[in-house]
C-alpha cells in the first residue's frame, strides 16, 4: 500500500549575501538579505570595510593640517564637510570669517550640493535598471561644475580649500563669469533628467509606494536631509538653524508627502534647482575684501571647551563635535555623518519589499561609504 504523501510543500527562507563588492551597493557595503521567495524578510547590514579612522587621525594633528581628512569622509559633498569642520574650529577659537569668504563658501557649497544630487539622480537611474543613460547625463553636467572647482581649488575631488578663518586663497578673477556661464547648462541638465525620469511610467512603477517611511518613523530613526523632507517634515538646517549667511537668501525647501522613493527623487531634483537660485543670489551680492581675518594667529591654539556645529550637507545634517583640552590639537573630534544615521533605517524600509527593490531603496538613501565608516 502506497503511503500518503503530505501535499503541503515546505518553504524555507534563503539567505542572500549582497556585497561588499556588489556594484550597486555604492561602495563597499554588505547586506545579508533573508528572502522568502521574492520578498525580503530581514536585512542585516555590515559596515566598516572602509574605516580609515578619520576621527582619530584628525585628533593627532593640529587644526589646520586635519582639513585634508574632512574631504575624505563624505567624498561627494566635500565642501560641506570642510565647512562644518572649519565652523567648529572658528567657534572654538572665536575667529570672525570675512564676508567675502562666507559668500564664496556658500557658492561652492551649493554648487557642491548640485554635483552631489546630480550624482544621486544618475546613480538612481542605474539602481532602477536605466542602465547608464541617466548616469551619463548626470555626469555630463557634473563635469562642468567640477571644472569650476578645479579652476578655483586646483583639485578635482579632495579640495582642501577652506581653512579655519576663511579660505586658502582667493578665487580667480573670472570666477563670477565662470559660474554664470555654467548655470544655464546645469539647469538644462536638470531639465533633461526631469523629462527623462519624472513622468516615465517605468520609473513610476518602480518607485511609487516603495520603501515608504512615515514622518513619525523618520523622526524616530533620526533621519535628516532629503530623506526626512521627502516624508514631509519641514526641517532644513539652512532655514531652521541658520548658519553662515544662509538667512540672506530667498529659496524654498521642497517637501514630499509619502516618503517613498519617488518623493526622495523629486525632493533632490528640486533641491538642486533651489541651490542654483542661492548661487545666483550669492553671485549678485559677492563683496570684495579680504579672505582671512586680520588677526589670524600663526599657530591655532584652542581654549578648553566643547563645540558642536552642524551644516545641512547633501545627505543631511553633517555635524562636527569638537572637544578641546587646550593646545593645538582637538582632544576628541566626532563626526555626525548623515549617511550612517540614514542607513540605520534600511531594515525598516526594506522588509516586505521585493529583492529587486532592495537595491533601489539602498540607492535612494544615497549613502557614501566614506561617510558611513569614516
Amino acid at each position: 500500500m502506497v503511503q500518503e504523501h503530505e501535499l503541503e510543500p515546505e518553504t524555507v527562507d534563503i539567505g542572500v549575501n549582497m556585497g561588499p563588492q556588489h556594484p550597486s551597493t555604492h561602495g563597499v557595503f554588505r547586506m545579508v538579505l533573508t528572502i522568502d521567495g521574492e520578498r525580503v524578510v530581514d536585512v542585516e547590514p555590515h559596515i566598516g570595510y572602509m574605516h580609515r579612522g578619520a576621527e582619530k587621525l584628525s585628533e593627532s594633528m593640529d587644526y589646520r593640517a586635519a582639513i585634508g581628512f574632512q574631504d575624505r569622509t563624505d567624498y561627494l559633498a566635500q565642501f560641506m564637510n570642510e565647512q562644518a569642520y572649519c565652523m567648529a574650529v572658528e567657534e572654538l577659537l572665536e575667529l570672525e570669517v570675512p564676508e567675502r569668504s562666507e559668500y564664496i563658501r556658500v557658492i561652492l557649497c551649493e554648487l557642491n550640493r548640485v554635483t552631489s544630487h546630480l550624482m544621486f539622480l544618475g546613480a538612481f537611474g542605474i539602481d532602477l535598471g536605466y542602465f547608464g543613460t541617466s548616469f551619463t547625463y548626470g555626469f555630463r553636467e557634473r563635469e562642468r561644475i567640477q571644472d569650476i572647482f578645479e579652476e578655483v581649488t586646483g583639485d578635482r575631488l579632495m579640495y582642501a580649500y577652506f581653512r579655519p578663518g576663511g579660505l586658502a586663497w582667493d578665487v580667480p578673477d573670472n570666477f563670477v563669469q565662470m559660474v554664470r556661464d555654467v548655470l544655464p547648462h546645469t539647469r538644462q541638465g536638470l531639465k533633461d533628467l526631469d523629462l527623462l525620469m519624472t513622468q516615465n511610467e517605468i520609473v513610476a512603477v518602480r518607485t511609487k509606494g516603495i520603501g515608504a517611511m512615515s514622518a513619525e518613523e523618520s523622526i524616530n530613526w533620526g533621519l535628516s536631509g532629503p530623506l526626512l523632507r521627502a516624508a514631509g517634515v519641514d526641517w532644513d538646517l539652512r532655514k531652521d538653524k541658520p548658519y553662515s549667511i544662509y538667512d540672506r537668501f530667498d529659496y524654498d525647501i521642497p517637501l514630499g508627502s509619502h516618503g517613498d522613493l519617488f518623493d526622495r527623487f523629486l525632493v533632490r531634483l528640486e533641491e538642486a534647482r533651489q541651490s542654483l537660485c542661492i548661487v545666483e543670489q550669492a553671485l549678485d551680492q559677492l563683496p570684495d575684501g579680504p579672505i582671512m581675518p586680520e588677526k589670524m594667529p600663526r599657530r591655532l591654539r584652542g581654549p578648553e571647551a566643547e563645540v558642536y556645529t552642524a551644516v545641512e550637507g547633501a545627505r543631511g545634517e553633517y555635524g562636527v563635535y569638537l572637544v578641546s583640552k587646550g593646545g593645538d590639537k582637538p582632544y576628541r573630534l566626532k563626526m555626525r555623518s548623515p549617511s550612517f544615521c540614514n542607513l540605520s533605517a534600511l531594515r525598516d524600509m526594506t522588509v516586505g519589499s521585493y529583492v529587486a527593490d532592495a537595491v533601489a531603496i539602498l540607492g535612494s538613501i544615497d549613502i557614501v561609504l566614506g561617510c558611513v565608516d569614516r
Partner: protein
Amino acid sequence: MIGIFKSMYITFATMLRTPVTIEYPAKHRDVPQRDRAFPILLWDKEVDEPFCTGCHACERACPVECMTVTMKDNPLHADEKSTRRKIVDEFWIDYGRCMRCNICVEVCNFEAIAMNNTWAGHELSKFDRNDLVLDLQQLLSQHKQDKIDAWVAE
C-alpha cells in the same frame, strides 16, 4: 505612455549633440594654473641653488609625514655668492603617501616648494612603489629645466 515618449525625445536630442568627452591617452585637456598634482622644489636661477634652506617647516606640517629633509651649511655663503646661510642637503618626498593637501606650500617661508601643475605631475604610473620616492635632484629637475610655471598663492 507620454512619459516614455518624452524620455525617448531627450535621448534622441542628446544623440545629435556634439560629444563632450575627450579621448584621454591620445589627447590631454588643459590643466588649470592652480592644478595641484604633487609637490616639487623650486630652483633659484639667480644664485644657481635651490630656494629651500631645509628648515623642516613642511616636514613638520605634513599631515601624512611623506617628507624627509636634512640641512647643511651653504658652501656658496662662505664664498659670499649667496645670502642663504643654510641650504637643503637631502630631500625626499614619497609621492605614494602624499595626499596633495597643499599645506607644505602654505607653511613654506621661502616659497621654495610648489605644487606641480602640469600633466607630468599626474601621469606617474610606476611598476615599483619605491620609484615614487623622489630625491632632491628629481624634485628640482622640473623647475630647473623650465618645464613648470609654478603657482603659489600670496
